[in-house]
């Protein structure tokens, strides 16, 4: 039953083919069996089985909701009441959240069963899941390689069939890049589509939660649960949530696809380029028209992103002070010592680098040169996308410049690690929705196709992904040893 999609599982649960308790137990056993992947920070076994029992009662009473009885795992960035919420940091190793994130409430209301909390890069800062306080996550396609990041535990868990679907968050590519490296389907929604309330903040103007699943059809069910206006999130956008499953089978005849020429420059690995071109050919067969477009300021996305993300990170992470919650150093000499040592002892190297960078960029004399400049460049990048998306319906290209790289390969050079997000970062700056869908393999490692849409066109993106998944089976491949 672990090889079925949640769409199939929901049907089986309703027909009584198996119970939610049986389904949940099957996943809990797989999580134990594949513990070496290190996908989970916390497994909430008792909690899950209790919820599954309640779900079974609802199922037999005939009042099941969208996800009743479906086991889901949550990225450990979403606050879960009375359950440890660590954000993969020593800082929050002792943090039992006193409330639920809106996303968690939404899953509870939809009847989902939570299997546990997933590993990630510390405070979502990383592209390989190697900055986690709880250790690196292995990519099930090749356990010597990284799963990508920051939602690495999320992507590896879905690829290894330890959960049928999960949540992730994406600040610069953290849903799409691990989805690509692990061969699963991931969607970063429009900024403001999914509530950030209770989602531990990294860079508030960029962070966005979204679904990661085996197929676009499943991702649609998750997004249906996650999306919606939330008055508790001041940046949440008041816009009605459409039925994300209703248009999955719409025809792609006449779809206009734009290929940004900057995505296909000499820097792109040849084999990945060939894989992406083959995927685009499939779309041609489905009736799409393809033309070249340009995003001239694309090369400025990484510099602008690392100013804005670091600046916002340094402001957001100032709340971790050793006073109200989280880690506190032993025997502080005075208040400054309490702050300095609590933060110094509990943050990892990458988090520190970004706090330092952000503090510098926001300090007197540098604010205009870095932060304001980056916000201006951000607008230029956003305008490039607006222009391109006025000519075509969607943009397509690679998600990542490489397939899964070796553990430790890029940890020595932060800049090289940042370049792993070269094709995803600009989308966060513009606040657009984008997906990664499995499009093939290079040397037995998955490659993801990125599909970028205009604001609030998630339903169209899911339709575009679903139609591709009707004529290809890349998304159905399972890594060896995890069948």
């Amino acid at each position: 039953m672990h090889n079925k999609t949640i769409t199939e599982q929901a049907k089986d649960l309703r027909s009584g083919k198996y119970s939610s308790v049986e389904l949940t137990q099957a996943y809990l056993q797989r999580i134990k069996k594949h513990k070496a992947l290190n996908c989970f920070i916390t497994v909430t076994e008792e909690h899950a089985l209790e919820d599954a029992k309640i779900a079974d009662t609802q199922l037999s009473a005939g009042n099941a909701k969208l996800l009743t009885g479906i086991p889901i795992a949550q990225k450990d960035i979403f606050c879960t009441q009375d359950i440890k919420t660590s954000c993969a940091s020593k800082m929050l190793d002792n943090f039992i959240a006193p409330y639920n994130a809106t996303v968690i409430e939404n899953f509870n209301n939809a009847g989902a069963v939570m299997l546990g909390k997933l590993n990630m890069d510390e405070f979502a800062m990383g592209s390989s899941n190697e900055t986690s306080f709880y250790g690196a996550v292995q990519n099930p396609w090749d356990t010597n390689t990284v799963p990508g990041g920051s939602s690495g535990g999320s992507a590896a868990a879905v690829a290894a069939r330890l959960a049928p679907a999960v949540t992730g968050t994406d600040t610069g590519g953290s849903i799409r890049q691990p989805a690509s490296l692990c061969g699963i389907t991931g969607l970063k929604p429009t900024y403001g589509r999914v509530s950030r309330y209770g989602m531990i903040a990294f860079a508030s103007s960029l962070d966005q939660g979204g679904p990661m699943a085996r197929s676009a059809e499943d991702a649609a069910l998750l997004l249906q649960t996650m999306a919606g206006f939330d008055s508790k999130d001041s940046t949440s956008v008041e816009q009605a949530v459409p039925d994300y499953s209703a248009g999955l089978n719409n025809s792609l005849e006449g779809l206009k696809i734009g290929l940004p020429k900057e995505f296909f420059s000499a820097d792109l690995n040849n084999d990945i380029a060939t894989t992406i071109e083959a995927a685009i050919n499939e779309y041609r067969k489905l009736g799409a028209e393809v033309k070249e477009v340009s995003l001239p300021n694309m090369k400025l996305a990484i510099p602008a992103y690392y100013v804005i993300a670091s600046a916002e990170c340094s402001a957001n992470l100032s709340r971790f002070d050793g006073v109200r919650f989280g880690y506190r150093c032993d025997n502080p000499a005075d208040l400054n010592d309490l702050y300095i040592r609590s933060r110094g002892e509990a943050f990892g190297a990458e988090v520190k680098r970004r706090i330092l960078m952000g503090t510098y960029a926001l300090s007197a004399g540098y604010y205009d040169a870095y932060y304001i400049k980056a916000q201006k460049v951000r607008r230029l990048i956003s305008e490039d996308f607006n222009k391109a998306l006025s000519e075509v319906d969607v943009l397509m290209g690679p998600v990542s410049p490489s397939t899964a790289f070796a553990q430790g390969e890029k940890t020595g050079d932060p800049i090289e690690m940042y370049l792993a997000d070269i094709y995803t970062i600009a989308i966060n700056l513009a606040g657009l929705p984008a997906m990664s869908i499995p499009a093939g393999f290079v040397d037995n490692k998955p490659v993801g196709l990125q599909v970028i849409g205009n604001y609030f066109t998630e339903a169209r993106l899911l339709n575009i992904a679903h139609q591709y998944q009707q004529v290809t089976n890349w998304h159905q491949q399972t890594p060896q040893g995890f069948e």
Partner: protein
Amino acid sequence: MSLSADEVKKIAYLARLGIDEQDTDAYAKDLSNMLDLMTQMGDTFTDTVQPMAHPMDQMQRLRPDTVSEHNQRENFQSIAPQIEAGLYLVPKVID
């Protein structure tokens, strides 16, 4: 653009962030590399461009000025490192 170890120490103090003495040079090198990356923006003409803070340029939403949250002090303080009589304890600030 390069930052010295002393500048790194100053920034770390501004951020109230402890860093090991032995790591200072490495941070200086990494931050200098990051700054080099960021200076790539310098050549782009942006004098007439408005800074963009929200992807959809949304303004801060207003709500009626009524009580919307109830007091959860005990709930929130149950996870604090050190409290007494409903107060957070910190080292002595005033002699």
